[in-house]
């Protein structure tokens, strides 16, 4: 049996965010740098302690090497670096890879970071086009596929196969708006109803405007170190217990299935490595680019049976006090969605929950969290399971 694992080998010791939402006049590098400063202070480290850096892509500052550009911007000379690009799944891949790199001695303290100004740094028409250009130029883009469309077609088929309703989709948006209202700094804070979602403009069926996530500015950063060094950390270390990834296709028309995704395998690998089951998870950060995405992921991550995501949401199981509270900060739908850093905000919320600092949104006794990142019309999936010291 192969016993190699990252379970308990590395920990998150610092977390930071920049101003979020609409942040005009600030570059993606500035946003990333602000988050980095806050994460360093949180970890009780200085910039010279960082010897590794992993970043995601920035649409508004499309450096080929964002991690290297940021290193220059903040004046560090790392000896381990990369810029990962698996779309929305990038966030979790950075945590999983950082844990492995720390365990194998490639670095001592790794900065995981993303920053983008999708809202203020890009003309709205260019932002739409930029996201569309991640689709293939020959077989998808010529037909006018919005980023939303690949997700819309999967949700649509899910509705046909399992009877998932527009009201159930809308309920996801309503729950997450309620969470955002209780989160300081959230971009959207006006209460909404299921009726509001259903009467908002149709963007690409079955998705109305309020079924779609936001466009925002923001930077998010974390410091990770080895479990040994984490013991002396200023903050409460949170350990990486398991990681998994799965990539099923590049073009949506070659997906093995559009109603069951690579999240099944990605999370299965993460659960196995962590030695836990979906029932053990106290809090989940679930990638929520669209409402239907959440419903499908609740199934594929094992929180409910296939096809039962809609009724599961309807029964309040993803709210505080439910079977699995998710996205207690409001998520990409209502809190903030600055592109690639968006899924890092799910990790930021997981850190808050596991430190017991989520205030009125606190999941009581939260010790074990799962974050699932995904992207590119369900082409890319990555899962990370994180726990406090009692879960080791």
């Amino acid at each position, binding site marked *: 049996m192969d016993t190699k694992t990252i379970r308990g080998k590395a920990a998150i010791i610092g977390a930071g965010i920049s101003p979020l939402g609409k942040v005009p006049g600030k570059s993606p590098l500035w946003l990333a740098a602000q988050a980095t400063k806050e994460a360093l202070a949180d970890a009780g480290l200085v910039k010279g302690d960082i010897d590794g850096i992993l970043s995601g892509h920035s649409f508004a500052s499309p450096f080929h090497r964002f991690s290297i550009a940021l290193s220059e911007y903040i004046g560090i000379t790392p000896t381990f670096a990369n810029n990962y690009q698996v779309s929305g799944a990038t966030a979790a891949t950075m945590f999983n890879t950082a844990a492995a790199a720390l365990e194998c001695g490639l670095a001592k303290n790794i900065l995981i970071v993303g920053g983008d100004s999708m809202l203020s740094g890009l003309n709205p028409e260019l932002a739409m086009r930029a996201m569309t250009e991640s689709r293939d130029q*020959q077989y998808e883009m010529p*037909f006018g*596929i*919005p980023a939303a469309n690949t997700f819309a077609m999967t949700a649509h088929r899910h509705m046909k196969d399992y009877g998932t309703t527009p009201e159930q989709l809308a309920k996801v948006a309503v729950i997450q708006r309620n969470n955002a209202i209780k989160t300081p700094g959230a971009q959207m804070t006006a209460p909404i109803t299921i009726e509001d979602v259903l009467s908002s403009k149709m963007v690409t069926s079955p998705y109305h405007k309020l079924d779609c996530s936001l466009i925002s500015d923001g930077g998010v950063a974390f410091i990770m170190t080895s479990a040994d060094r984490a013991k002396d950390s200023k903050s409460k270390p949170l350990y990486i217990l398991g990681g998994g990834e799965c990539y099923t296709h590049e073009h949506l028309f070659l997906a093995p299935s559009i109603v069951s995704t690579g999240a099944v395998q990605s999370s299965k690998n993460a659960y196995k490595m962590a030695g836990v089951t979906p029932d053990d998870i106290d809090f989940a950060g679930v990638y929520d680019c669209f409402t239907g995405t959440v419903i499908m992921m609740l199934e594929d991550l094992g929180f409910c049976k296939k096809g039962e995501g809609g009724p599961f949401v309807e029964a309040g199981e993803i709210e505080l006090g439910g079977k699995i509270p998710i996205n207690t900060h409001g998520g990409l739908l209502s809190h903030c969605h600055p592109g690639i850093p968006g899924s890092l905000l799910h990790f930021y919320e997981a850190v808050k929950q596991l430190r017991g600092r989520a205030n009125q949104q606190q999941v009581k006794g939260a010790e074990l969290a799962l974050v699932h990142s995904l992207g590119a019309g369900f082409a890319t999936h990555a899962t990370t399971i994180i726990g406090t010291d009692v879960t080791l």
Partner: protein
Amino acid sequence: MSSLQQAHLKPMPMPDADSAELWKGLKEGKLFLQHCQDCNHIQYYHQAICRECLGENLVEKEASGRGLVYSYSVVYRAPGPAFKDDTPYAVVLVELEEGPRMISSMVDVAAEDVGFDMKVEMVVEPVNDEISLPRFRPISR
């Protein structure tokens, strides 16, 4: 990333070493699928090796061009200025009779009238000297 000026132009396929034959066929109004002579796999789109067995013994056969709408989405908010005048339009995931699926969009039908399992057939839409796009219309009886 494109400039604002480019964003007003529709993206055009640029045939490459793998796909040149596919686009050549479409220019003549024919949809070709690749049939693997070693493992019987049938694939869309064109590439130099079989996606299943990695063999290179691929034969082109013209497809019927008929299929069913496996899923769809009607686009009301265009992905950038180039598609604004087309809305609403229906993007479809078509399952061809031969098995492979492909992404396209519908013509000759109101976007709102497109539905699951609708029987469709391919029509080609010439867009420039080199490229004709494969699009679909309902099969009328």
